[in-house]
C-alpha cells in the first residue's frame, strides 16, 4: 500500500530554511542595484571570435564621448578582455558597506570584469570538488553574473553594456536575473557560417522577449567574404547598424552609437 505523501507545492508552511525566499531576495537586490540604469544592452553573438568585446569597447567609448553615462559589465568570465580594451588602470577594488566600486576608464566608463580579480595568466578556478564540477560550475558562473549585477555600485547610467561570451547560455542567465529581458545588440562577421550561428542566437533572444536593436557586422573588407550582417538584418527586420572595417576610426564608432540610440528610441 503506497504511502500518502503530499507534493512539494502542497506544503506551504514556512520551514525556517527559506531557500525560495533567499532566491527572491537575490532578484530584488539585482533590481534595486539596476534601478538607476536606463537600459541594459546585451552584446551577443552565437559565434566566437567575431569581436564582441572589441565592438563593446568601441561602442562604450563612443557613447561616453557623446555624453552618455556608460557602464560595461564583462560577462565573459573565462576570457575577460574588456579592462585591457578600455585601458583600465590596474587597481584594487574598493569596497563600501554593500557594494564594490567599479573601475573607471579614462573616458569615465564604469566597468567590472573578472580580469580585475584574477591572478595574471591564471584561468578562472573555483574551490570545490574537482569531480563532477560540470554539475556546479555553470551555476557558479550564473551566481557570479548575479553578483556582478547586484553588488557593483553601477550608479546612474544611461546604458549598461553587458559583453557576453559566445553562445546563448549567459544571455539566458542574464535574462533570468533582470526584471525584464535586456535589449540585444548582435555582432557577426560577414561569413555564412557566422550568419547561421548568429541567427540561432537572435532567434533565441527574440523568443525570450528581448528587443533586438540591430546587427553590427565586424571585420569587413578583410579576408572574410559574405553578407551576414545584411542578411540577418533583413531576416529579423532590424537595422544593420554598421559594417566595421578592420581598423575603424572613432567616427565609425560614433556612427554605431548614434544609430543604436535611434534604434532604442524607435
Amino acid at each position, binding site marked *: 500500500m503506497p504511502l500518502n505523501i503530499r507534493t512539494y507545492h502542497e506544503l506551504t*508552511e514556512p520551514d525556517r*530554511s527559506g*531557500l525560495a525566499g*533567499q532566491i527572491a531576495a*537575490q532578484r530584488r537586490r539585482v533590481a534595486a542595484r539596476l534601478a538607476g540604469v536606463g537600459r541594459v544592452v546585451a552584446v551577443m553573438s552565437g559565434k566566437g571570435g567575431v569581436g564582441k568585446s572589441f565592438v563593446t569597447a568601441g561602442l562604450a567609448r563612443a557613447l561616453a564621448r557623446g555624453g552618455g553615462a556608460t557602464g560595461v559589465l564583462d560577462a565573459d568570465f573565462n576570457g575577460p578582455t574588456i579592462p585591457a580594451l578600455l585601458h583600465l588602470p590596474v587597481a584594487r577594488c574598493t569596497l563600501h558597506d554593500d557594494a564594490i566600486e567599479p573601475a573607471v576608464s579614462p573616458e569615465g566608463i564604469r566597468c567590472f570584469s573578472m580580469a580585475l580579480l*584574477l*591572478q595574471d595568466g591564471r584561468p578562472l578556478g573555483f574551490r*570545490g570538488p574537482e569531480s563532477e564540477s560540470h554539475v556546479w560550475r555553470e551555476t557558479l558562473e550564473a551566481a557570479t553574473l548575479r*553578483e*556582478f549585477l547586484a553588488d557593483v555600485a553601477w550608479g546612474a547610467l544611461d546604458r549598461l553594456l553587458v559583453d557576453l561570451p559566445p553562445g546563448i547560455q549567459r544571455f539566458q542567465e542574464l535574462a533570468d536575473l533582470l526584471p525584464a529581458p535586456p535589449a540585444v545588440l548582435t555582432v557577426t562577421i560577414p561569413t555564412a557560417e557566422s550568419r547561421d550561428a548568429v541567427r540561432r542566437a537572435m532567434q533565441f533572444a527574440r523568443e525570450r522577449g528581448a528587443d533586438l536593436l540591430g546587427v553590427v557586422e565586424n571585420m569587413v573588407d578583410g579576408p572574410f567574404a559574405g553578407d551576414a550582417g545584411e542578411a540577418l538584418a533583413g531576416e529579423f527586420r532590424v537595422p544593420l547598424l554598421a559594417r566595421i572595417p578592420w581598423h575603424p576610426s572613432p567616427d565609425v564608432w560614433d556612427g554605431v552609437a548614434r544609430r543604436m540610440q535611434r534604434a532604442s528610441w524607435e
Partner: protein
Amino acid sequence: MKFLCVECDRQMLFEERQLPGDGTLAAAFRCPQCGRAVGLLTNPMETQLVASLGVKIGGTTIDPQPLETVRGMVATGREDAFEDGNEDGTWETGKGKGPVPAWSREAQERLTRVPSFVRGMVKKIYADYARDRGIAEITPAVMDSARSELGLEGM
C-alpha cells in the same frame, strides 16, 4: 527542498546545520508534531551545488557581503584584488548592535591562513556575527559557531 513527516503529515522544520569541514553538510529537520528529527547529509558535490546558488540551507541571519559567492569560491583570485584589509594592522570591526569585539591571538592566527582574496570579507562576517550577539572576544570557538550558524562553508 522540503521534508515531510509522513506519519504526522506535517512539514518538518529546519533545526540545525553542521559543517564538518570536509566539504559535506549536515542539516537537521524536526517534525513539529511528533518531534522526530531527520538529518540531511550532502556530499561535497551536492554541498557545492547548493552553495553555487548563493543560498544557505537553514538561511542566514546576516546580510550578504558584496561578491560573497565570488570571493568565497574563486580559487585563482589576486591576493591584492580588494582594498578591504586594514593596512594599519587593526582588525575589521564589523557592524552590529554590540561592542567592537577583540580578536584573540589564536583567532588572528587562524585568519592568517585564510587566502587574502577573501580574508577581509571573512573578518567582517565574523565581526558582524560577534557584535550582533554581544560577543566581546572572537576566538576559534566563536569562529566555528559562526561557520555552522551562518553556513560559511570553506571560510
